[in-house]
């Protein structure tokens, strides 16, 4: 089986304090993986490591067939300046930046793709609206449209449905299903176990280290969830250098 990502004894963290400790495992190409765990478990940290915003303290991340900058990534709180005068259409079109570069023409083909992406998330009619006028759910739809345009084989979503209503969530889950059927690798950080059980075949349960990484119904069993909940959240300010063998 080919894999899209492989973590080998991966430790990620901040100022030498690990947020994820000694994670090893593979994400097969085309996987639809949920990452679950309590707050502070290292879920977002893992995604930041995968896209290369954060360098590993130890261990490695191998990416097959994609560079770190080619991965489509939806952060938990996009630091978008909503007062900036750009329209929905313009913001969605930035998904083409990698492809078009500094001067690449946005021709008729690209314009159709942008319009299709906007239509696919149900924002037709909003093209000319400035982004400051969007609601939270519309904003999230717009960011999904940009992910669509990025056309990446690996897509990372960090809590994409937080503060999003049911209708929008189910629409966006439809898009995730479409990506899965297109054999893209999708990794999503989620808190809603119901959504995870229903839509995600595999789950990685994290609590600063791997608790379980398995088919969803096995990973999210009572024993594992209890173990995850006992995680110690605060790091030890007087911790020694870690001597654990790989």
């Amino acid at each position, binding site marked *: 089986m080919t894999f899209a990502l492989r973590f080998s004894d991966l430790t990620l963290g901040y100022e030498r304090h690990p947020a994820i400790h000694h994670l090893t495992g593979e994400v097969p190409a085309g996987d639809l993986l949920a990452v679950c765990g309590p707050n502070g478990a290292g879920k977002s940290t893992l995604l930041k490591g995968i896209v290369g915003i954060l360098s590993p303290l130890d261990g490695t991340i191998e990416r097959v067939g994609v560079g770190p900058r080619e991965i489509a990534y939806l*952060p938990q709180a996009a630091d978008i*300046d909503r007062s900036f005068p750009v329209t929905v259409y313009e913001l969605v079109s930035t998904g083409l*930046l990698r492809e078009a570069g500094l001067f690449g023409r946005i021709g008729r083909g690209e314009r159709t793709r942008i319009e299709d992406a906007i239509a696919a998330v149900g924002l037709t009619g909003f093209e000319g609206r400035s982004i400051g006028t969007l609601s939270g759910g519309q904003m999230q739809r717009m960011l999904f449209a940009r992910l669509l345009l990025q056309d990446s084989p690996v897509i990372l979503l960090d809590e994409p449905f937080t503060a999003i209503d049911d209708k929008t969530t189910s629409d966006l889950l439809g898009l995730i299903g479409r990506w899965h059927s297109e054999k893209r690798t999708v990794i999503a950080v989620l808190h809603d176990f119901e959504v995870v059980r229903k839509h995600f075949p595999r789950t990685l349960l994290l609590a600063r280290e791997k608790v379980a990484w398995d088919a969803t119904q096995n990973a999210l069993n009572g024993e594992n969830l209890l173990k995850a909940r006992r995680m110690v959240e605060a790091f030890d300010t007087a911790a020694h250098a870690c001597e654990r063998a790989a």
Partner: protein
Amino acid sequence: MLYDVFISPFAEFEFMRRALIGSFALTIGAAPIGVFLMLRRMSLVGDAMAHAILPGAAVGYLISGLSLAAMTAGGLVAGCLVAILAGVVTRNTLLREDASLASFYIISLAAGVTLVSLRGSNIDLLHVLFGSVLALDDDTLLLLAWIATITLLVLAVMFRPLLLECVDPGFLRSVSRGGTVTHLVFLCLVVVNLVGGFHAMGTLLAVGMLMLPAIAARFWCAGVGPMIAAAAFIGALASISGLLVSYHAGLATGPTIILSAGVLYIFSLLVGPHGGLVRQWAPGRHLEA
């Protein structure tokens, strides 16, 4: 009569024509830079950079007197050094940009003043402080034209990443490594335009040509492109009216041009269609949908 007021000062006096062309060149380069500074909430960065440039220009003056090349070079070196150091520190430590800029520009200013006092001469820095828009020679005019040209070309090259760096820096970081470079090049463009500006307006007032037209333009246009065009237009209008007022009333030219831009800003603030005060006080009845 109208001819006497509006045309004859320019038709009769070459220094007025030179001043007009110089200010046009200045405003064409400064307008887009100012718009980006404003939209990135960096409106005060221009002021900080102007302080950072001053000592460089003063050192240039100390070494070779009132020489265009030396003062320009000194200003560029000091300004770009401060911009790059601040940018690098911001992106590699927990300091925010305002903090790192504040520390470096004040170091630059102090170093400049120290250097000047070492020499012990009481040099006339009035030229550096207030500029000499009515005494622009060929070299200075060419310099201003070059600066406008380079600014527009560089902005054209990095327009997309620069815009994205303003709206959604996190996204830019996730798809490209160019964000930092874009930012540093942009800061250097700010420096280049301020250095051009100080020959005409003086180091401190150069910021006026950078920011006032851009901030006024915010009230007239919604998109970035139109905003840049509007800023250039407002800057040109301020140049013409400032020159005419200073000619007829015998006022100092640089400050009068900036004051004209100030008047245009207040006018825009009042009646501009995008968030202008009059529009806010009397918005009209609410719409159906």
